[in-house]
């Protein structure tokens, strides 16, 4: 199954140039419970977009839709002007990589072996593992500073180290879009900053588009270009961090009285619970 040749975005692009994901009035209903209702969103190339909101607001569901892990009950999602369903398995995997909330146990695989699995969309079930594939694996290890874990069993690494190896696998996949579902949820503060800095750097250096679910509003504000806030399955805010970090807005998002102070160094806004 080879990808039909295709311009990144065609001339008849109806949503304007640079739009990767075009989400239109998407609903998700599970067991008669509405998880997402009438969500519309356009995601541009090169953005680092943070999805925020409290538990059960639908942010994980939304990112799983984009990753084709589940399907919307109603509405449509286009990726590069084609509906998600129209993409072949491997074609889509060459474009979009997804890191689930809890990366599964790696079954004793070594770091390099796990990262090499990221090449599957390129070589397929029977294709040869070429020199080019090897190069991508080594590149991915170098880029994420995980070469030291290449010969260690992934399951024996600490949470932050493991997360970085998984990111390396996503790098080896060489997709232009990364979907990260709470990549920092299991990490301590130092590792959170570590991983998010890495994500931000990768986005800049390789021109990647990154959509990331984050729990912690201050982390999200610091590392994202754009924040989309969900509440009860609806998008209630969609703005830059600077404009979204206001106490009135945050109260609406989290349902808690929140205040803003500015960071003593650098002056960017910091949210706190009043």
């Amino acid at each position, binding site marked *: 199954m080879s990808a039909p040749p295709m311009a990144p975005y065609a001339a008849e692009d109806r949503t304007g140039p640079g739009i990767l994901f075009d989400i239109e009035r998407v609903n998700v209903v599970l067991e008669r419970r509405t998880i997402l209702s009438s969500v519309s969103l356009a995601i541009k190339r090169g953005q680092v977009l943070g999805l925020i909101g409290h538990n059960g607001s639908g942010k994980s569901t939304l990112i799983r839709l984009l*990753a*084709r*892990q589940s399907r919307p009950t109603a509405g449509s999602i286009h990726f590069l002007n084609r509906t998600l369903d129209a993409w*072949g*398995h*491997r*074609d*889509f*995997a*060459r474009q*979009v*990589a*997804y*890191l*689930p909330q809890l*990366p*599964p*146990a*790696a*079954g*004793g*695989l*070594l770091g390099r*072996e796990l990262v090499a*699995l*990221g090449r*599957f*969309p390129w*070589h*397929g*079930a*029977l294709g040869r593992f070429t020199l080019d594939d090897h190069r991508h694996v080594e590149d991915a290890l170098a880029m994420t500073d995980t070469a030291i874990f290449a010969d260690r*069993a992934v*399951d*024996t690494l600490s949470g932050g180290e493991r997360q970085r190896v998984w990111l390396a696998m996503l790098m080896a*996949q060489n997709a232009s879009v990364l979907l990260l579902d709470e990549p920092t949820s299991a990490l301590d503060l130092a590792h959170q900053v570590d991983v998010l800095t890495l994500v931000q750097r990768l986005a800049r250096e390789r021109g990647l588009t990154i959509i990331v679910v984050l729990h912690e509003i201050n982390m999200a504000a610091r590392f994202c270009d754009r924040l989309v806030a969900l509440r009860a399955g609806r998008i209630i805010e969609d703005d830059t961090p600077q404009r979204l970090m206001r106490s009135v807005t945050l109260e609406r998002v989290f349902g808690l009285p929140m205040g803003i102070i500015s960071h003593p160094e650098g002056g960017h806004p910091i949210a706190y619970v009043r």
Partner: protein
Amino acid sequence: MKDVRTHNGAAPSGKGPTLLLTALLFASALVLTLWSLSVQLPIRQWPDALGGSDPDIASIVWREGALPRLAVSWLAGLALGVAGALFQQVLRNPLAEPSTLGVSAGAQLALVVGTLLAPNLMNPWGREVTAFAGAALALLLVLSLVRARLLATTTLVLAGLIVTFYAGSLSSLLVIFNHDYLQTIFIWGSGSLVQNGWDNVLYLLPSIAGIIGLIALMHRSLALLDLGEEAARGLGLHVGRMRLLGLVLATILASLTVSAVGVVGFVGLAAPALVRQTGIRRFSARLVWSAIVGCVLLWLSDQIVQAAFGSARELVPTGAMTALLGGPLLIYLMHRLKTVDINLTNAASTAQSYRVYGRPLLWLASFLLVLLLIALLVGRDSSGWHWASSGQIETLLPWRWPRVTAALAAGLMLGVTGALLQRLTGNPMASPEVLGLSSGVAIGIVVLLTLPIVPSRPAQLGAGALGGCLAMLLLLLLGRRSDLAPEQMLLGGVAIGTAMSALTSIAMASGDPRMSGLLTWLAGSTWSVDPQTALLAIIAGVVGTVGALGMCRWLDILPLGPATAQTLGLPLVRARLLLVALAALLTATATLLVGPLSFVGLMAPHMARFLGGRLAWRHLCMAGLLGAAIMVAADWLGRMILFPYEIPAGLVATLIGTPYLLWLLRQR
């Protein structure tokens, strides 16, 4: 480990419907009974027959056969219902009951052994003591296996069901060697309610009444266990002592029924489950209702068996029938369990593999070669052990090579299939035997035997593969909601296995001459293999292995879970279906050669992991070689251990494999 809150947590689906259902069951049992009693003896003769003044043979059969059978079904059902409710209360486990805890199977095995060793002691009391000893030993074994995780719902039952399998294999080994002597034990062992007199009733009635009286005295203390261990202790209850007493009483009830009517499974599971559905909360009420419902359930099952099999009603064991219904029930109850006890996957996959220096594949291959030489050349006769001399080789080889080749091929296929399934499900405890794939194959083959078709090899293979595929797809569908949670899948597989053994019991008991070879085949003998079959088997094995290796990229990715597989662009549905089909075909071929229960498919891939089989292709190759080695060794041992008698290779492998499985469980 999460606490089990589901015990009382099953949402009461309304008192009305369940009570209605019970009443309906009761009414149909009553109608069926009256009908069948009146068929056996016209109603106008009943008073005479009851008075014993009617010398007619029909009325004697009615009085001494039909009526006591009715009474025994009431008593046994009642005892089982109470035993189930008590086990569930004491262990705080909604899946516990005599047959899921291994208690019944233990009692049965003890009785088989007792009948062989000391037949003269087998009066009612001797039987009861023997049965209780076996039951208690089995329960002790199961409880010691799960020690710290007594309250881990599914683990406990898993251990119990495996002990049941093991005891069952041992029993069938004994039956094979003492066929003439023990053939009736096979029928009785699967829970036959046939009576020829009132002795059983007169013996059961006071014993059961006594035990239930004791339980009634304890019901307040037992009810406190509902609060959980700590709260109960806080209220001054001696929890440990209470548990022990409860277990002993429930075990006595279970062993009483086993010694009287054999293993009748799942009544003790179904009755309390039905009662819970009504939302009855108080323990004493649950106990009483479980007794009543258990009584009605067994009564109805027995009446259905009698009505359905008419003249063969003496031969078809009712226990097999309840087990057949029990499998699906177990799956259903498990499905409703909301807690998943522990994550087996993580526990096993973080286990360090040993570093093997050099080329492990080469080592394994040479090891297999040595084993092959031994299997082909070393033998035993009346004067001792011999290497075959060059002159003997020519005469011996034509006898030995087909079966050795068949064992090799079967082991290879099972090993590869096991590795494949472990990767497909991401579950280190998966194997064709444990997941019910082998059982599905066996069901397919047994069903084929009952059809009016000549059971040629290709037909058997087709039927087996179809059965295996269906079993596997059923399991994948069931597991979808829990994302293929390991323990749920294992239990589902064991439930399919239970249905299989029930079906074979019925088939065996039916007396159909076509079933005669069934027991030998189920035990997994290679002696009948002819050269042509052996060649075909090895070809199938090699082709299947190559096919599996062709999918090894998928198999590398699949253990990482469906989400990762999908995001890497793996065609999940197609890959799963293809792999399931291949696994079913391989298992069907292997099962035709060595029977459904060998556990080679569990052991070999597991050892292969220890030896460093991380990546799929190496894992598959090593598992295949190890499987072949185990099976060749088992075949040879089976020929040698009890020379001149022969133990089927599959049975030898089971006897080695089950302790390995239990040890694995204990490791967690």
